[in-house]
């Protein structure tokens, strides 16, 4: 992958000037995935990252239901009910693929062999706690899937989310109020307004989009450090 290549959609606004939409965030994440990395993209918005990985990136996608070197979503005659991703969407296989069973697939995840995983989140805390599986609502039916395994397994855990909820509440918080998926597991948070590194020294703002650090500091309930 060429880290200097522009986002694939020429109509997108240039990064840095204004807030990003989900496609922009996905493109921004794709730029940070090293050449040849083994990557798991969580269900939902993180799957958009795949659209921004170039063919020569050498990135190998893992799907936790038992496959490495997963290809794009299947269309038309290529749809095969035996070949789906973790979101149960029909996908394709690339040359060099391998299939394995669930225990082997999660051993691969839990054993720290994936270089990167990208997950959505309800909340991320300053010390890297992740909440993305359960709203904690009393009538919610709990369902975790592979979220907890992914959160603790990959060498680097990237979160992709908006920085604020629709009602304006911060999602990067001093302490998560939603039930946790994993503790101290998030390395970096990609949002519409900024990219944050969660470090032992604190939350470092690597980059902003249409906002200043001071803007963000005024709306977030935690100290921000410049990069």
């Amino acid at each position, binding site marked *: 992958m060429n880290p200097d290549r522009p986002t694939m959609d020429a109509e997108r606004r240039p990064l840095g000037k204004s807030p990003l939409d989900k496609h922009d965030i996905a493109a921004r994440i794709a730029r940070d995935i090293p050449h040849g990395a083994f990557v798991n993209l969580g269900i939902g918005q993180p799957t958009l990252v795949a659209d921004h990985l170039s063919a020569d990136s050498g990135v190998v996608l893992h799907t*936790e239901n038992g496959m490495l070197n997963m290809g794009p979503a299947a269309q038309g005659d290529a749809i095969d009910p035996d070949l789906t991703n973790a979101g149960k969407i029909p996908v394709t296989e690339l040359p060099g693929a391998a299939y394995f069973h669930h225990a082997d697939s999660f051993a691969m995840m839990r054993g720290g062999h994936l270089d990167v995983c990208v997950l959505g989140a309800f909340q991320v805390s300053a010390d890297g706690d992740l909440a993305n599986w359960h709203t904690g609502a009393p009538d919610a*039916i709990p369902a975790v899937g592979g979220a*907890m395994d992914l959160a603790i397994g990959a060498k680097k855990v990237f979160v992709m989310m908006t920085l604020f909820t629709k009602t304006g509440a911060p999602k990067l918080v001093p302490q998560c109020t939603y039930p946790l998926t994993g503790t101290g597991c998030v390395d970096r948070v990609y949002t519409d307004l900024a990219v944050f590194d969660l470090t032992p020294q604190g939350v470092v703002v690597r980059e902003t989009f249409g906002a200043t650090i001071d803007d963000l500091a005024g709306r977030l309930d935690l100290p921000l450090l410049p990069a």
Partner: protein
Amino acid sequence: MTVKLCAHADEAVAGIKDGSTVLVGGFGMAGMPVELIDALIRQGATDLTVVSNNAGNGDTGLAALLAKGRVRKVVCSFPRQSDSYVFDGLYRAGRIELEVVPQGSLAERMRAAGAGIGAFFCPTGAGTLLAEGKETRVIDGRTYVLEYPIRGDVALIGAHRADRMGNLVYRKTARNFGPVMATAATTVIAQVREVVDTGVLDPESVVTPSIYVDRVVQEATA
């Protein structure tokens, strides 16, 4: 012991007892042993504990088994889906128990059962709701949760091909939980698309060796 080749799914599920723990393969529809589940519905065993990744979709398969009130408890990673209304209704009515297990721990706990491991320290879920009440231990600075095996009385799995000895191969991501469940149950029943002569499958590519398989039935719709 020698595998039994069954002429019909009803023969394959014969004898499953009330109160059994039944491991059911599949991830979504991939690898789902639909004909075996339908046969289990006809067979009549009740008060079942079902271990499967999901808790049924729509009105068929697992959802139909649930709808008939035959399942006391579901152990799964992801019950909630867009079309899991049968489970959702039973759960909200307090008519079914639910144990949510992280997907990898679900697989590993069944692997432990099949591999004779008494318990294992697993990092997944440490510090979360799903570890509440479980023993934990810090090993080399990391917190682990002690997880115990999940054993089945019966496993119902879907595979691609079997030979006449019971060796199984799977196809693409339909492999998922089948090979693990096959190691973890007392009686393992496989629904396959094709039964081939012994010697046809490449010994290098057999995923579930015959030792794990008790009964095989070829899909009626294959």
